[in-house]
């Protein structure tokens, strides 16, 4: 081969190589709607971190649909419903193939219906109300289990493992999440033959629970267990104050108690005999979990703050998996692929959408706190 031919060939090859990225196609955009400032930021910010991490890992492994890069566009909706609505419209105007976000039903309800209308799937990483798919429509998907599942799980544990007969229930009356949790818990306790001897209330943001504690002390018949339906902000405070008052009865809750605060605020001596139902992630030795924790530490310099980080990670993973199966990013096709998800190995457990309610069939982990240490007490599966 003459030198001239070789030069032409090599130049041609170089041009081809430089054009390859362009041939790889435009990026696949996902709109991540989260409250990164304002009151919900401690729950939502880690979720966005998790989501971006997953996208980065996918891109490192070669991207989707023939090398296209996955881009997660984080939109801060400032714990403000108007911003949620305009954020959703903005994401849709930017041509995202799917939306994800939020740890609270209120914000999902402000944003998801807009996606439904435009036939773009919306996957919530952290909102757990079991009626969501029915309220929004068939383009709505949940990564976590429903509140009914987690309440039933901890109720079963209360009656069967803790052998309780009389139960006290404290409810945060300012959030639909906590009210739903209490409602399902009470329903299940009574079905299993338990008795609710005291129902007390508080509001998100309350710092002092001395009145409720005094009523708890004086309740007749004496409650064997107290169920506290609260979000992370009040989790540590309630445990601390109850134990400081000298009450030793087991304290149970839902995934609102899945936070470091439940051990750090009371301290190792007082963080005792606390049990809560949550996503299968904490203290879990599955390879997906360990890999996630390692990757998160490497990327952000500290371990994941709470389960919402893992859930955000899973939301992106779920969408990516569906894109691969659908072999397209078209709205209806993606929706169908998502609905057909069976046994997707998420960090927070296996996800399958087999139930008519649209709520995923996922395992619930019951975590016990003893002397400031977490331990998986049991894994509960909902009935098919």
């Amino acid at each position, binding site marked *: 081969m003459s030198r001239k031919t070789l030069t032409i060939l090599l130049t041609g090859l170089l041009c081809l190589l430089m054009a390859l990225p362009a041939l790889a196609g435009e990026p696949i955009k996902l709109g991540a709607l989260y409250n990164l400032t304002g009151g919900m930021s*401690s729950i939502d910010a880690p979720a966005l971190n998790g989501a971006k991490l997953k996208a980065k890992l996918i891109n490192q492994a070669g991207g989707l649909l023939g090398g296209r890069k996955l881009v997660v566009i984080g939109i801060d909706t400032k714990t403000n419903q108007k911003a949620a609505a305009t954020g959703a419209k903005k994401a849709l105007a930017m041509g995202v193939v799917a939306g994800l976000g939020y740890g609270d039903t209120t914000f999902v309800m402000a944003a998801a219906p807009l996606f439904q209308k435009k036939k773009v799937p919306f996957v919530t990483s952290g909102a757990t109300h079991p009626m969501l798919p029915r309220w929004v429509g068939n383009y709505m998907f949940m990564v976590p289990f429903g509140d009914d599942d987690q309440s039933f799980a901890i109720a079963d544990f209360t009656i069967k493992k803790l052998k309780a007969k009389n139960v006290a229930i404290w409810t945060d009356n300012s959030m639909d999440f906590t009210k739903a949790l209490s409602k399902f818990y009470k329903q299940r306790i009574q079905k299993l033959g338990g008795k609710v001897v005291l129902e007390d209330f508080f509001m998100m943001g309350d710092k*002092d629970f*001395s009145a409720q504690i005094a009523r708890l002390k004086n309740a007749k018949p004496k409650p064997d267990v107290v169920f506290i339906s609260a979000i992370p902000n009040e989790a540590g405070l309630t445990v601390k104050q109850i134990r*400081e008052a000298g009450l030793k009865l087991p304290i149970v809750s839902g995934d609102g108690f899945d936070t470091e605060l439940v051990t750090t605020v009371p301290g190792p001596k007082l963080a005792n005999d606390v049990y809560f139902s949550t996503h299968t992630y904490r203290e879990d030795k599955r390879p997906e979990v360990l890999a996630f924790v390692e990757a998160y530490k490497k990327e952000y310099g500290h371990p994941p703050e709470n389960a919402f980080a893992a859930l955000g990670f899973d939301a992106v993973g779920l969408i990516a998996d569906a894109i691969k199966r659908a072999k397209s990013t078209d709205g209806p096709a993606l929706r169908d692929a998502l609905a057909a998800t069976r046994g997707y190995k998420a960090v927070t457990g296996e996800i399958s959408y087999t139930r008519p309610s649209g709520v995923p069939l996922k395992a619930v982990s019951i975590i016990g706190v003893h002397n400031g240490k977490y331990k998986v007490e049991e894994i509960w599966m909902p009935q098919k």
Partner: protein
Amino acid sequence: MGAGYIAQQIVNGLILGSMYALVAIGFSMIYGIIRLINFAHGDIVMIGAFATLGLMAIPGVPFPLVAVMVLGVGGLVGVLIERGAFRPMRGAPQVTGFIASLAVSIILQNLGILILSAQPRNFSFPAYLQVMINLGPVSFRLVDLMIMVTALVLMLVLMAVVYRTKLGVAMRATAEDLDVARLMGIDINRTIMVTFAIGSALAGIAGLMWGGKFGQIDPLLGFVPGLKAFVAAVIGGVGSIAGAMVGGFVLGLAEVLFVGLLPPIYSAYRDAFVFSTLIVILLILPNGLFGRSSEERA
């Protein structure tokens, strides 16, 4: 619901009230001297709480020294805000200053989230302060007692300063009539600065107490004490230090007693009850408990 239960609730209310009082006093002082509703006052409480956390983490610093340093931090922040945001605006209509303080509050909160992250953090005092004290039916922790005692001591010191020192005379004069005070030769810039420093120092130490009482802090925690300070100051009559003190205790007691004495179903209505009471108090005493009706002529 025996007498012991009620006694316990009253004690709880007083402890909470002493913290509110401390924040309300600083707030009222600032209002008294330049007619400014400082909405960033609550965020100085937040800064005090985080400063405490940071200082306690330095090994070898004894706790009482931390408390003193936090006073300094609070005062410094107050002075910075005064110089940066409020001094250029002196002489403007009242509501302008209010809005500016709101802007400062937004800046502090968002800086807090950016720098410190929104995650709530655990906050614990040295163990010897967590000891439980039992006096008959009533029990509280040593830290609660310290909060109340410190608050009262600081209030007494403040009263002494305001009513027995030359600085206090300058403060009262400036509060009464700024222009005349200036004509009398009082350095109003310095007086205002010192007032801000003292008021903010009190807010800073209130932050230390807040963290110690509740065990948990986050960058947005300032909103609640700021609001309560405002309400407490209004109950007592804005501008009156004694009024702010009393207002703080009244508010603390009202909050705890409403939840404590009413059936559980009403616990969720607590804020509504407290504010309704507030409105009723104001209707009977339109200038708060100790306020002067000349306030609004400014």
